[in-house]
């Protein structure tokens, strides 16, 4: 379908989904839900239960911990996975600093999605490894 086809095309250009075939990309596009956030809206809320996993298709977000900006996210970045993997509420707010188009997967659906798409899981691990490396660099 056109909407999902467009999303599948967008996904093909993102590192996390770059190993998937076209039918797999279309399946992912149908599995995730497209969500749009106006500028200034909170997407993830620090300390609240029940959050989800987001992949940014367009736009920019800020990560804020206790109101302090820690990082920015943009197209291709993802967030929300840490709290889902650990079963804990998010430790940061994520706020849209421009209109933001995302793909959303509810927390309870993330495990089965990643297990069913091991190449996506591998790419996600790579991204997490980079984040860990950068965090360690800042500390050293």
């Amino acid at each position: 379908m056109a909407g999902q086809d467009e999303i599948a095309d967008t996904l093909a250009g993102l590192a996390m989904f770059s190993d998937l075939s076209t039918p797999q990309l279309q399946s992912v596009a149908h599995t995730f839900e497209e969500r749009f956030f106006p500028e200034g809206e909170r997407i993830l809320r620090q300390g609240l239960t029940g959050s989800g996993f987001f992949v940014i298709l367009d736009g920019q977000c800020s990560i804020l911990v206790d109101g302090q900006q820690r990082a920015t996210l943009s197209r291709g970045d993802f967030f929300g996975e840490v709290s889902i993997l650990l079963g804990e509420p998010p430790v940061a707010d994520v706020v849209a600093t421009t209109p933001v188009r995302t793909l959303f997967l509810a927390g309870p659906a993330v495990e089965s999605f990643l297990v069913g798409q091991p190449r996506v899981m591998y790419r996600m691990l790579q991204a997490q490894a980079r984040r860990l490396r950068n965090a360690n660099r800042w500390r050293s």
Partner: protein
Amino acid sequence: MAELTDRPFPPGDYPLIVVGSGPGALQHSYALSRLGVRHAVLSADPSPGGMFRRWPFFQRLLSWTKPYAPVERGTRAYERFDWNSLLADEPENRALQPSLMDGSSYFPARTEMEANLVAFARRTDIRVRYECPWESTRVEETPQGRRYVLTTSDGEYRTPTVVFAVGIAEPWAPSTPGMELAYHYADTKPAETYAGKCVFIIGKQVSAFELATGLLQWARRIVLASPSPAQLSVVTKTLVGVRARYVQPYEDHVLGGGVFILDASIEAISRRGGELVVRTRRSDNGQQLDVDADDVIAATGFVAPLRDLPSLGVATFGHSKLPSLTPFWESSVAPGIFFAGTITQAAGGLKKHGVPANSGAVHGHRYNGRVLARHLASTRFGVELPRPSVDPDRLLDFVLEELTQGPEIWHQRAYLARVVSASPDAGLRDDGFVPLAHFLDSGGGDALAITIEADGTGAIYPVLYARTGGTMSEHVLPASPVLDFASPEHREMVVDVIGKLGVQAPV
């Protein structure tokens, strides 16, 4: 009472205009009138009902109304069990739907739902300028501020505030090669037409399964296909997915009865001799699979008929081309343009655990329409909303009653919340219902937000949010297998939370 043939609201200037005459528009117009907000209502249709004047195709709703419920018909608590009546203040205008049903099902027939909406419009004297289609829109900047100019078949209307309740009922089909050989759900033929035919249905949403269910006794073979697996509401434990009434084709499929449900993308439709061939590609292994069919039906959904609003800056997203909205259902980029009815699902709220609110259905958006009316009345028309005082000794019972009975928070879980504010000057005040996202993100003084939530496992439970000293805390109360949220355990936990507001209550 107004006759439906009246022609009120001639072209001109109005403080507020509502577009539509389906349940969303009727509910919102009713609520505006009760708050004293003068407005015009315009509709392209000849009579009330919106999409229910025509659909569902097989003429019975998915939303139930229980004529016999655990609580008295016509009470506020009864709204939990009656998903189809609109909301009225006057006892005689409440719970109209059950009195119009013939007892054959607790899902009203389409004609019964239409009669319910017509009766509501007549009895509550909702005036609508029917057969006056909105055709285009432009903006005029005036010394008094921005005006939206709606061009209609009858002339031009000017207003600073417009509420579109135009549904999501414009058929949409993808641009797949050969799609012209298919036709949309909206153009499905009488069921007997498909006797002995092979029918290919594109899509696995509710509308696809509704068609498949209705054609089981007619079609020789039914194939449903889309890239991702079918979801079932009894599995998602939400309204997401195919509703239980339409699961029969799924059972037929898994038992090998002749219905096929494919996870495959649709690549092309072509004609070969006297039949159609649908070329698909399987999601699991990428292999091509050709399926022949006599008829191909695109149950690929509907979009919001926003006409030229995107040219005014109204941003849209998603499969249904929904507008980007604030928590109070205002366009995020075109101030003064609001939405009511099923389009309010575009403001998704928190979607905690992935569970959506029920804004896409009457039993959810009827409350949004009322909250929006209060919001518009107070922010744009200077109406001072009542904020009744709450006796501190009564707060515990107030919270428990709301959790047990409140239809707004039961139907709009984690989406609407009842708010009680606390201040040294005004004491405890019942601020009514607001979108939960607004409460969480807008800041303000000490207050308690009361709501019900669900996590997709089948558990339904109360959640309280306390804002004290500028800090928000979330308090998840236990689920109950019999939905009893006034147990000693719940009472004790609520007492703890309201203690944060400085209210001491006996357990």
